[in-house]
């Protein structure tokens, strides 16, 4: 799960990392009230997506009235498909310098990587490209943890000015502690700001927590909000792996790899998938029905391609789910169906029985390649 900036900052602050004074607001009126207290403020849209600044989601204001009117604007905005519903209202810092600190999982080394740069305020990739000599990186073995000497190496190798050593040392140490304590996947301070009076602040804050760890971290689990498009939220509530895409062919498959392969196949045939949807292993007929419902509620879907290779998943169970779905709703969208693997024959039998009474409702195919071709054809893609 991704924490909102204001949530991450609260955690940073509780652990001793200095953050700008600020409060969260849900309405323009609340924003104004906070601005009356603070004076010049920065309004920061709280959305769980990057590139918020470039998208105009951050506004500097000088007066409460200006804060009010800009908050109005922000609360009408959508950033990369996400509505702005919360605004973090913060004191304006007198910034002398921007730097960067981040910690993330290192898949290749089965470790944790910590990155420090004496420049910041842009993407870490951009820093790496523009200022390779101002960025330093260390791989932390998770068993031994971050060592003090590694922090010293980071300080020296990033060209950090000597006067910030003490503060940055303790910020990195704390950031690592937070990373471990909250079982993070990523945490980042960008920019890490030095103000004109020499104080160091986490001016922004990211903290992404491993979903799989939430069962033992109730504090975070309670903070969890489902994010993404409405359909994605719906799917997540129902325990379905669903990602909305911008094509018109709905895809249902079992297994993450198979679902991706099915999407790819559609693309290879000249079509465009409308989604990724994985019913997983051993899906129940109920889950199959829910998945179809979900896909049908996406108005851009012109055709559905169901591609099942039964392993643990049984073809007869999938077939039943399908039949149930069709008997409960009036499906007008054409559905291409491929069923192979475990209990294939029983599955086909259920389907052909159903087709006897509902001719044309389903278009059975034998292979996934054939199915993809058919689906693209029906979507008018080729």
């Amino acid at each position, binding site marked *: 799960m991704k924490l909102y900036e204001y949530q991450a900052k609260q955690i940073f602050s509780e652990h001793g990392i200095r953050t700008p004074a600020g409060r969260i607001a849900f309405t323009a009126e609340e924003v104004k009230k906070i601005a009356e207290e603070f004076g010049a403020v920065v309004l920061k849209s709280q959305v769980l997506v990057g590139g918020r600044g470039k998208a105009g989601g951050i506004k500097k204001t000088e007066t409460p009235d200006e804060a009010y009117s800009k908050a109005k604007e922000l609360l009408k905005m959508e950033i990369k498909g996400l509505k702005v519903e919360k605004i973090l209202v913060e004191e304006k810092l007198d910034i002398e310098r921007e730097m960067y600190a981040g910690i993330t999982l290192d898949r290749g080394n089965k470790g944790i990587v910590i990155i420090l740069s004496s420049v910041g305020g842009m993407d870490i990739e951009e820093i790496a490209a523009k200022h390779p000599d101002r960025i330093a990186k260390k791989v932390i073995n998770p*068993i031994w943890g971050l060592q003090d000497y590694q922090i010293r190496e980071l300080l020296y190798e990033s060209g950090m000015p000597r006067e910030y050593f003490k503060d940055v040392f303790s910020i990195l140490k704390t950031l690592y502690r937070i990373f471990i304590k909250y079982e993070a996947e990523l945490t980042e301070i960008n920019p890490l700001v030095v103000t004109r009076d020499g104080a160091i602040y986490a001016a922004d804050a990211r903290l992404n927590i491993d979903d*799989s760890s939430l069962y033992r971290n109730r504090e975070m689990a309670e903070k969890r909000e489902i994010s993404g498009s409405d359909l994605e939220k719906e799917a997540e509530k129902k325990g379905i792996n669903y*990602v909305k895409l911008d094509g018109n062919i709905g895809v249902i498959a079992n297994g993450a*790899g198979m679902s991706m392969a099915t999407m790819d196949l559609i*693309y290879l045939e000249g079509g465009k998938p409308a989604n990724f949807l994985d019913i997983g292993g051993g899906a129940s007929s109920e889950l199959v029905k829910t998945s179809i419902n979900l896909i049908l509620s996406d108005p851009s879907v012109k055709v559905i391609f169901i591609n099942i290779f039964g*392993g643990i998943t049984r073809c007869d169970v999938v077939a039943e789910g399908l039949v149930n779905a069709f008997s409960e709703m009036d499906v007008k969208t054409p559905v291409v169906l491929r069923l192979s693997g*475990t209990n294939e024959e029983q599955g086909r039998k259920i389907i052909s029985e159903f087709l006897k009474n509902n001719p044309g409702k389903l278009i059975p195919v034998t292979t996934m390649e054939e199915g993809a071709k058919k689906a693209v054809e029906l979507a008018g893609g080729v």
Partner: protein
Amino acid sequence: MAILIDENTKAIVQGITGYQGSFHTQRMLSYGTKIVGGVTPGKEGESVHGVPVFNTVKSAVDETGANASIIFVPPAFACDAVFEAVDSGIKLVVCITEGIPVHDELRMYWKVKEKNAVLIGPNCPGVISPGKSHLGIMPFEIFSEGNVGIISRSGTLTYQIAYNLTSMGIGQSTVIGIGGDRIIGSDFIELLKMFERDDETELVVLVGEIGGTDEENAAEFISAEFSKPVVGYIAGITAPPGKRMGHAGAIIEGGKGTAESKIKALEDAEVRVGKTPYEVAKIVKEQIKG
């Protein structure tokens, strides 16, 4: 020969009395896998499909001489189960469990490494050496004995490809689902090294997907050190950045881990990459014949 498991593999099932553990124990037994014991704390003395249950891995190993383990315990207990296995002398651990916290996976990885053991998974369908042994949850009916090794990050795609191969009359030496998580016990390279040494394996199919750089690293290894032909497949050409495609590990982050990058790396290493699972099987057929 095959790699990892064969007819001499004597395995225990950790979490044998659970629904999944019991169900797959039966299936593995029916395939001929030597399941010699099971572990569920507090259930020592019971038996599951004729397999004796022990309280601890230590006592299971002492009593049965097991050398491998397959883990079905819930995610909260999986890390401890892996530690228990390798600390008790087990040298091959297959962890089926899905949803293990990634910080636990880091610990598991390093612990297994310290013990010079091998971990397959977690969040994987397991391993099969057709005709010899099956330590996993695969639909084993679709596999057949032969000389093609498969290493795959995806379960169902593996089945699809193995099914296509078997249909074409091409059997498999060993098929390994390495798991879809970000931190896994064994990656392509470690298993390629084993296939390199395995006389029975003539060719290896490598099934990758978006996320991470394991395929790129494997490509480098293949080009430098691997002598047998490799056929590749990469899922996720159409996956958008920043979205997790089912598997925890299948996510394009910071511009890294795209299918394009992986396909290019493999092709640069002279690995022929199939565009569809069927095409993969067709290429294998050509190369095996050639």
